[in-house]
């Protein structure tokens, strides 16, 4: 479904990712781990077309999307939930969702089913809801585009444990659905390793580990070496 081959990308003259390879089958799950500032978010932005691709190729389905603008990639089926959430403040919750609607099985009713909190707040403006609800809204908005691949960039960042539980439940529901591929960038290492059977670890813009999550989880020395104490301290679930 998604294949990156030798991707080197960054912003302007600055190179952040160097020679990144990864592949994800339809309906597959992938966790992306690494210390702060190693290029995890840049990897997500590169897949959706928000960085400057210097070398390499990105294929989605049977097509190369390297030269495609961001909005076309979204229309081809790549949904993206950014770290910053980017809820539109002047629109209501319902408008924020409907603005992204494309035909498919994800309808507003289904999003409200997944996130009942949003249904109760459907008339509130984007700024008149809590941080957790904004995160749900950002995920719901990405789902309204009926993607076949969903990129989640640190969705648990700064959220209360009870909200993290709700989001995790929603991610498991998405996973059970089976036909949506997910890439999860996460600082909470154990949470990510438990969620996804495969993991890549980035360090200074390069993939330094790619393989089974279980292998990484069972090798504390390797994990400490790749992710460091910071990763361990954020271990959760």
């Amino acid at each position, binding site marked *: 479904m998604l294949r990156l081959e030798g991707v080197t990308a960054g912003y302007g003259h600055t190179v952040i990712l160097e020679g990144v390879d990864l592949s994800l089958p339809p309906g597959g799950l992938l966790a992306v781990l690494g210390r702060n500032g190693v290029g995890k978010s840049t990897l997500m932005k590169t897949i959706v077309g928000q960085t400057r691709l210097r070398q390499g190729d990105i294929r989605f389905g049977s097509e190369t999307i390297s030269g495609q603008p961001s*909005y076309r990639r979204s229309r081809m089926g790549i949904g*993206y939930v*950014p770290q910053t959430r980017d809820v*539109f403040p*002047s*629109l209501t919750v319902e408008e924020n969702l409907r*603005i992204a609607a494309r035909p498919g099985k994800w309808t507003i009713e289904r999003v409200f089913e997944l996130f009942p909190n949003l249904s109760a707040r459907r008339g509130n403006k984007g700024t008149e809801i809590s941080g957790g609800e904004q995160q749900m809204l950002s995920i719901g908005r990405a789902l309204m*585009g009926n993607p076949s691949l969903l990129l989640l960039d640190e969705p648990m960042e700064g959220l209360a444990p009870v909200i993290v539980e709700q989001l995790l439940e929603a991610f498991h529901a998405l996973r059970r659905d089976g036909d949506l591929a997910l890439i999860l960038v996460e600082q909470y290492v154990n949470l990510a390793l438990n969620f996804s059977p495969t993991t890549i670890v980035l360090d200074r813009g390069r993939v330094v580990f790619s393989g089974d999550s279980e292998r990484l989880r069972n090798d504390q020395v390797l994990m400490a070496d790749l992710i460091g104490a910071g990763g361990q301290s954020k271990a959760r679930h």
Partner: protein
Amino acid sequence: MTDRSTAAILLLPPDGVSGTRKALSMSLWLAALAIPTLVPGYTPLANQMVVMILFALSLDLLVGFTGIVTLGHAALFGTGAYTAGILALRLTNDPLITALCGMAAAALVGLVTGSCMLRTKGLAFLVLSLAAAFMLHELANMASSVTGGDDGLQGVSFSPLLGVFEFDFRGHTAFYYSLACLFAAFLLVRRVVNSPFGWSLRGIRENDGRMRAIGCPIYARRLAAYVMSSALAGLAGALQAQTTQFVALNSLSLELSGDVLIMLILGGSGRLYGAFVGVPLFMFAQDLLAKEDPANWYLGQGLILMVMTLFVPGGVLGLVERLRRNLGRGGRR
């Protein structure tokens, strides 16, 4: 829905808008209808205001809802005015046909200039909008055999509206005609800004990168909004030509572009009714200041604008909203 008359449905704001706002909205339109009866001497001035409100409303679609700030909007107003005027002199003087042609011509100019200018944004767009307006102004000046040049387009007259209503000297036909056009334009703009297309325009204004990431073709949407706004500005220009029976070179000027932007800012952009508040406020203030000090009235106007920009950044409607919110908070405490 069945218990509401068609007129009420048209007049009322969309669902979700408070009862007070609905009542205010309806009374505003009903009060406007009564102007020629209540203050007949002010009907021509009221007509001028209605035309300018339509012009400011067209700008609101760009500035307030899409986040496109332009200093060349008069180019589109002037295009509509000259198209209606030239057609009336040379081909047909039917008000509706010339108004439609004025709209179409302005939309075409908007499409051509917008296609180039909207590839940029911010300061670059502002400069390009100025350049396009200067070029059109100069073209109209150069083509004096068609446009009348600096003397303006004189001797323009229009046939009775719908073959029945003469444009009388009291200005009643002109006023009701302009008001009907404004009402239709208002309904259209309200419908647009409350549709998924309108939400996407607001999304573009707030975060165009995010809109791209959810699959929105930014350039196409901005261009569509620009062409729609151009057509409405063209309609305002055509109405100006029809109701004053004259087209001045000033209708393409930077001064007019600046004035309409100030009117919108005074009233509050991005609120639909901002134009309805800002235009009368600006025109009354201008009238009063000019009476007080005919030589230096721009000084007073500048001062008012500075105070408004520094202390009331959301315009009059923004201030009202803030006060209402504060009162609501106070009441809850």
